[in-house]
Structures are given as C-alpha cells and as structure tokens.
C-alpha cells in the first residue's frame, strides 16, 4: 500500500532511537526501575520471543498489589513467567507510546482506556478481546461493573479488560474548617460561591488545587459541564460534533469557573502547586485549605500522611454538589471507571496465551479484590460490595461504602476528559485549561481554541 510503511522499522530504528533517548532524558530521575525480587532484570525490549512482559506504574499501595499479582502468577506458572518493569506515571506515559510505536512494547499494555486505547486500536497494535471475553471468560466479564467497559470499547469491540479500581472524583473537605466559620458543607454551586468569602475572611483558602498539573483543574470543568448542561454536553464533544465547546452550557460553565477563580476560591499560588508532590492534599489536611476536589485515590495517602485528619474523623467527603437550575443529574460522577489491560498484537502466540492467563487468573482474583479493599479502594468487580462488611476500621468502612455507592449509583460515570479524548485533543485541552485558570484567555477564546481540534 503506502510505500512509507514498509520502511517503518528502519525508520524507527533511527528516529525512535533518538527520540527515545530524548524521552528518557526528559524523564530525568524517574526512569524505569526493575521489580524488587523479580527473577529477571527488566529488559526494555519485550517484543520478540523473550517471554511475556508487563509494564506498570509505581506508587503505593497500587504497586505492591500489582507486584503480588505477578508473584502469584509466576509461582503458579514457573515455565511461563511474566517479566515486569515498573515506571513512574509520567515516564510511563512517554515511554509506552514510543515503545509500542517502535515494536518494542510489552505484551501486556496497561493503560487508562479511552482515547489512548483508540490510538492503539487504529494503529493495529492491540488484540481484539471481544470473543475471548464473551465466550471463554464470560464469568470474568459478568463480574465486572458494566460501566467499566465503555472506555475499553472501540467501534463496538472490546480491546481491553478493565481491572484494578474504580475511582470517582470526590469533593473532600475539612470538618474543622467548617466549624471555624460556622457553616455547613455546600449543597449547591451557589453555596460554594457564598462560602468562598467566609473562608477567606478567616484566612483559610476555600479550595486547595495542584494547578500546575493541569488535569487537576480539568476535574472542575468536568463537573461544572455536567451539572450545568448535563452529560450530553461532553458527549457531543467526544462524538466530534462541530463547535461542541461553544454549547451555551459549556460557555456558562467556563464562565462560572473563572468567577470562582476571580473570587479567590483557590489557594494563593495554586498554579505553582503540583499534584505529583501531594502538596495539594497536604494543604487540606494541614488546615490551610477547607475543601479539595480530587480523585478517590488520594484517600490512602491522606490517611497515611495526614496525621489524625482521617483517623480523627475530620475528613468529610461528598459528590460534587448540583448547580441550581442546571440540567445535570446530581448522581453523575466523573473519574476513572477502571484501569485497563490490553494485549499487544505484536506478541507471539505463546506470550499472548501467558498474558491472557494472567488476566483471567490473577488480576481480579479474590486475593486481589481483598487487597484493593484493604487499601481503601473499590475494585471494578461487583463482588467488592461483599468484602466491605469485613472492614473493621470505621473510617475506612464509611469511605469505601461511599465510593462504592457513588460509582454504582451514578447515572452517568464519565471518563476523565484527557483520557477519553485523543492525545492530540487532550494536550490542547490541558493547555487551554491552564490558560483559562490563569485568566489569560476568556471562555469564548477557550471554546474557539478547542473547537479547532474537535474530532482530531
């Protein structure tokens, strides 16, 4: 067909090599680290005939659970061991794309589904798992939350198996801060706006925000779009509808966003704060900020690092409040409906078998589900509910039930925008969100910039 395609390998050898070096250099100190206790040194190249490979992310408690899964698998299958390589989040995102493009990717491709998965599918890099899941693994498929499959499905076919945890975005707050100003947690967006000056008067920042990370700001827009205009506003954008960002509800949401920023709703210097350092969480549990919109995955760290913030019962949490007069369903939530594992189409048949066996036997087995629940997370399986009663810690139990109910009762569980959209749109989106929060562009300019890349 295209004469260019035939020479792709050669090309990649040259270009990809240099690019990879640049990518790795960019990651600086956060390069790959090989699994502690792993039998083999982690070799970057897992594509050709060297056994099945699996790359995943560092960071506790997830890292420990993933390592335990692999260990159980390798103990049970000494002949077809899975080799692992661990990466820090941003390093992983940069490396996995380059590696897959160069035919050097792992057998098991871990990811967030959505737009990233779609790019792999369009490039023919991942296996179609529809038949395998419907026929051979119907039990596994039925045990998983149905909502988790949306982000794993491209053009009606399933290319990834949901795994790990469902993590909605939640509004956390500090009960002590609300006692100080003698107010109740907000029941609507309008309440939020009226709480802002009260907190500022007392020298407490209304909201903590790790604005430098950009996707942290995005969570706000995800909720405002939904609460004001309903789930279809973003659905239209996702479907590539022309000028989808100029929807009147979208513009109104963007304007409300800037109103909150102008009213000093966020902590001073929020654009200098990163979420990776967990400084935004620290602002909440040290009492410098009263509220924080963040992923459910932050619970574990706030419990571990926050002194008596969680254990003393000072942490409150709720779903994002409704917008008076808005169209959105108040039960709607956004976040990550799961994490996803795909199988490389470039792997050998033996490697694919190993990978499938691992997915089927070890990723959502009882031990894993229990470990996730113990770590304060809700795994993507329906049986998670049964495990909740075994939790003895009062705070953990209340938290887990809340997360489970939020996820299970959500009328619409939207995937994070930067994961749902194509990488090209996602990058432009994050860029423009940062500018919107800097107040350097208006809602109208934001919509114009974003409309330009719709459907790309």
């Amino acid at each position, binding site marked *: 067909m295209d004469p260019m395609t035939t020479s792709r390998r050669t090309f990649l050898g040259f270009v990809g090599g240099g690019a990879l070096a640049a990518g790795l250099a960019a990651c600086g100190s956060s390069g790959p680290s090989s699994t502690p206790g792993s039998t083999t040194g982690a070799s970057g190249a897992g594509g050709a005939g060297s056994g099945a490979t699996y790359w995943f992310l560092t960071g506790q408690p997830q890292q420990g659970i993933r390592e335990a899964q692999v260990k159980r698998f390798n103990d049970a299958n000494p002949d077809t061991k899975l080799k692992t390589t661990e990466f820090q989040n941003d390093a992983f995102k940069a490396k996995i794309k380059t590696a897959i493009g160069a035919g050097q990717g792992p057998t098991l491709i871990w990811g967030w589904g959505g737009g990233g998965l779609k790019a792999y599918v369009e490039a023919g890099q991942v296996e179609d798992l529809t038949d395998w899941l419907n026929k051979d693994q119907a039990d596994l498929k039925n045990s998983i939350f149905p909502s988790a499959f949306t982000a794993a499905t491209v053009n009606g076919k399933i290319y990834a198996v949901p795994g790990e945890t469902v993590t909605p975005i939640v509004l956390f707050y500090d009960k002590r801060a609300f006692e100080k100003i003698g107010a109740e947690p907000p029941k609507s967006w309008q309440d939020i706006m009226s709480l802002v000056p009260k907190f500022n008067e007392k020298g407490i920042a209304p909201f903590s925000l790790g604005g*430098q990370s950009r996707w942290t700001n995005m969570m706000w827009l995800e909720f405002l779009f939904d609460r004001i205009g309903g789930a279809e506003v973003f659905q239209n954008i996702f479907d590539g509808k022309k000028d989808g960002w100029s929807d009147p509800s979208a513009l109104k949401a963007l304007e409300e966003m800037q109103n909150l920023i102008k009213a000093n709703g966020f902590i001073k210097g929020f654009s200098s704060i990163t979420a990776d350092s967990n400084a935004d969480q620290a602002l909440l549990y040290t009492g410098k900020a009263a509220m924080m919109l963040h992923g459910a995955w932050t619970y574990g760290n706030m419990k571990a690092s926050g002194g008596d913030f969680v254990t003393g019962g000072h942490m409150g949490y709720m779903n994002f409040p409704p917008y008076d007069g808005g169209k959105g369903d108040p039960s709607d939530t956004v976040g990550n409906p799961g994490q996803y594992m795909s199988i490389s189409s470039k792997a050998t048949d033996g490697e694919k078998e190993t990978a499938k066996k691992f997915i089927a036997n070890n990723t959502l087995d009882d031990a894993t589900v229990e470990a996730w629940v113990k770590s304060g997370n809700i795994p993507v399986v329906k049986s998670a509910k049964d495990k909740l009663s075994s939790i003895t810690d009062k705070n953990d139990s209340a938290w887990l039930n809340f997360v489970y109910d939020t996820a299970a009762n959500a009328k619409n569980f939207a995937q994070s925008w930067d994961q749902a959209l194509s990488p090209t749109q996602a990058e432009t989106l994050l860029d423009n969100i940062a500018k919107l929060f800097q107040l350097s562009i208006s809602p109208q300019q934001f919509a114009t910039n974003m409309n330009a890349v719709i459907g790309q």
Partner: protein
Amino acid sequence: MSVAPPVPPGSLRNKPASGVGRSGPVAWMVLPALVLFTVFGVVPLIGVLVLSFTQWDGLGAIHAAGLSNWKSVLSDSQLPHSILVTFEIMILSWLVQTPMSLLLGTFLAGRQRYRAFLAVLYFIPLLLSSAAIAITYKALLDPNFGLGPGLQLGFLTQDWLGKSNLALGVVIFIVSWQFIPFHSLIYQGGVRAIPTTMYEAAAIDGAGRIRQFFSITVPQLKYTIITSSTLMVVGSLTFFDLIFVLTAGGPGDATRVLALDMYKRGFMSNQMGPASVIAALIVLLGLALALLLRRLGGSTTASQQEGA
C-alpha cells in the same frame, strides 16, 4: 572587528588534506568521531527532516503529508511565542551569566589557597543533574511549604512558578546559577593563559587593577568569551530538562521554549510531523547562531597573544 589577526606563517591547519600525503595517517584518527557523528547526529537529522514531511502519530503507519506540517507550524501563533521565549531566556541568561562568570573566572585565576577552596564550592551546582536542581527549586519555591513560608519571609513567598514573568525570571536565575560555575572555569583557564609580562608592563605604566582588567584581561579573553557565549547561546536553544521538570512550560505557555514545544507536540499530542518541523527549525537556528558568533570573532581561532 574586521582586523583579523595575521595568521602566523606555517600554521596551515585551517586547510588540511589538500592533496598532501601528510594527511593520510591523520585522516583515520577522525574516523571514530565521524562514525559516531554520522550514526547519532546526521542520520537522525535526516530522519527528522523526512518525518517533517509526513503525518505520523508515533504508533501507526507513516503517511506522506507534503508541506502541510510546515505550513501549519509556521502559521501557528505558538511558534513565534516559543521563539520569543527561547530568545528571552537565551539573551537574559547570557546577560546575567557572562559578566558574573568573567568576574568569577578572573577572581579564581589567582593562585591563593582560599580562592582554590572557593572554586570548589562554586563548582557544586555543576555536579547536580538538572532534574534534581529543578525538583529542589520547586520545593524551595513552593508558595505554601517552601523557603519563604518556612522562614516567614514575605518577599520570598511569591507565586514564583505561577506568574508568567516570575516563572521566566526563575528559569533564568536557575539556569544562570547552574551554569555560571562552568563558564567561570572556562574564563579561569583563559585568564591563566594570559602572560604575566603584560600585567607587569601595565603595572610599570601605572595601570590600576580595574584598568588592567578592562585593558588587558577582557581584550585578551576575546576568544574565550566567544567560545563561552557560543556554548551558552546554542545550549539554551536545546534547553529542556530543567524547564520540563520545573514548570513543564507553564504557567500557560509562559516558559514553553522551542525544545519543549517540540516535545509536547511529538510525545504528548502524538504529532510527530509538526514536532519534526520544530526540531528542524531548532537545528537551523542553532547553526545560524553558531556561524554568526564565529563571524563575530573573526574567521580564525588563532591566539592573539603575541602582537595583538
């Protein structure tokens, strides 16, 4: 500027291999460097140039795209902004680094014990990796948990990385902090190479320290200054790691230099074609600047020590 120093007779090293048999044994010595340069320099460069005329998302097939990438990048308002930021950082950091390194280098050229000791201290920033420096500064500059709030110093408690101008200033400061030691070292070597006879003669003529510095040290260091400036200018074109870790090009795009723009387009937006266009532009700019600086310094690298 046009008075290029006379080329000393016999030093024909500027035009070797003109059919003389003497170059035979010397030529193969260039081979290792040439092979490395070809494999890791020229070949990827050609690859990038070819990629700039294609459409590729880094995953699937590569499609020829003609001039569309060049057209879209050259008409994108992001490009002039990135070039502007790149040059701002280049020029401002040059303006900070050159006088400081020159003075420090001259100071360290003295052979006193305490100066040798200080030289070791000044050298420390150069030992740290850019990523480590960026992470450290990020923690120090944190508006809530950083140095300012920690020491209760109001003027240090700024939104350093969150305001466009401040962030640019911070980048320039850290770049200078990191590289002044390196350039001081170059100047130290340069100053030590100046014959002491010149200073002795000047002292007899009654020139003071300051007069000596401006009339002997600085003119004698002309080529050292050009070398050091070339390194600074061309180096700042490819400046990436520190800015990537420190601000990731933010806030907004206030510190998005060309190299960062390239990375974001290529590896975050999955648009290798436009990213390659920027890469090609960086190469062209770098070559042009290096040539320009060589021109400024005259076409030879001969020492002007004797007879200047």
